């Protein structure tokens, strides 16, 4: 495996926005403990703008760092702009991810989309959210 970037290690060691938001406007939980990663993302939306985001993650170093980064990225964005955040953008903001850990950034994107989807549903608005294609985990070795 390639090494984690210092940015990844920073976000892993001191993750931003850890926690829950009581009565969140949107919550998304994605992943599967069997595969080793579960992310839950909470958002608070005010006037079409994401005013707060928090997460809880069960997973590896990259999973925690991407969760931290994606919550950083969405705060202050309109929901339309938030929808445009791709996994590549999350990975890039972290200074890159090891190839075998790219799926963590996909999971972060999924968690965000899932939270936004939940927001639309709660609002009763038809959801424009398209979930990214499930890439699956690249299983190294065996």
């Amino acid at each position, binding site marked *: 495996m390639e090494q984690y970037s210092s940015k990844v290690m920073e976000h892993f060691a001191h993750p931003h926005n850890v926690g829950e938001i009581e009565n969140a406007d949107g919550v998304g939980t994605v992943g599967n403990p069997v595969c080793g990663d579960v992310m839950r993302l909470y958002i608070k939306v005010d006037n079409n703008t994401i005013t707060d985001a928090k997460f809880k993650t069960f997973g590896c170093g990259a999973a925690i760092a991407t969760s931290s980064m994606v919550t950083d990225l969405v705060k202050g964005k309109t929901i339309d702009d938030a929808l445009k955040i791709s996994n590549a953008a999350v990975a890039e903001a972290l200074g890159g991810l090891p190839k075998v850990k790219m799926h963590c950034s996909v999971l972060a994107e999924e968690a965000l989309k899932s939270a936004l989807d939940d927001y639309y549903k709660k609002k009763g608005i038809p959801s424009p959210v398209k979930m990214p294609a499930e890439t699956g985990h690249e*299983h190294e070795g*065996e």
Partner: protein
Amino acid sequence: MRKVYLDHAATTPAHPKVVEAMMPFFTAKFGNPSNLHDVGREAKNAVEEARSKTAALIGSKPEEIFFTSSGTESNNFAIKGLAQANSQKGKHIIVSQVEHFSVLHPVKTLEKAGFAVTAVPPSREGLVDPAHISKAITKETVLVSVMHANNEIGTIQPIAEIGKITREKGILFHTDAVASVGWIPVDVQALGVDALSLSGHQFYGPKGAAALYVRKGVRIKPQIEGGVQEDGRRGGTENVPAIVGLGKAAEIAAADMGNRAASLTPLRDRLLAGLKQRVPDMFLNGHPERRLPHNVNVSFLYVEGESMLLFLNMEGIYVSSGSACTSRSLKSSHVLSCIGTDAAAANGTLLMTLGTGTSAEDVDYVLEKLPPIVERLRSMSPLYEDVVKSRKKT
């Protein structure tokens, strides 16, 4: 900061006396053992001395020891070499499901080449039942391979019992003793095996030197061909310094053997008991008693192994998550899944293996640092959140 290396199942440092023994063979005594002149002779003698010392550690004759480059190579050599050289007897192989991949993958390769394979499941504690082996034997069975001790969960198998069965039936029996040689007594006569793998870097020898014991008279097909070295069984210029180092490590281990288990077992138990006391929702993998004296394999519910490993690393504590040899793999341990460990829990597994230099203070340092890490990760875990909430409800 204190540095506590608890990953001795992955590799050990070479003993200072091992390094000292190796040093002359890089430059002053650099000869190729195949050469007839004094420079070659000197190297040849050193290799043969190392062969005797390695043999002495496991109770074999020197000429039954074949040096290889790693435990992985020894296992490949044993499985493919024995099966290929004796296939006239039959084409059925029996292994346990908890073998190392360096046994399982060669077995898979043989399967593609027409061999039939039975993989016997272990108990919840990782034990292979000799009766299961017995039942699996057919007229076609040519080879049984069951590891002596499991490198992940530490369970020690009833090899002597299995050896009795295979001997009675005249079937070849190989044991992968890479995880146990140097840590607990291993004697090929007492175990009744025909072949046994060991690896130097697993017990304070150098990387690059390992061995396969093959009982005299047992036929084995060379896998690295084209050299007269190792009695024509394994070609390639001998890694003289590393072989000398392996010999020295074997000598040291033989002398220190009584001491090793006696001093490691209480430390292992201190670590496990301390963790149990401090961390809820945690359990031991493998057999509670029939286990390697330096092996602690525990699963922490609701947290993931790599993140624990990385936080421990920041505290100067070095451990493995899941399998010692495949911790770069995302796939969780096949051993844990074979013994029925829940997949999510398996993802929260740490393997801590002590060494001869581990002190009670080291253990206490881990007991101080690890519980808060688990706690912190649980506070970030959605799985734990769900559990807490559901507990509150009931």
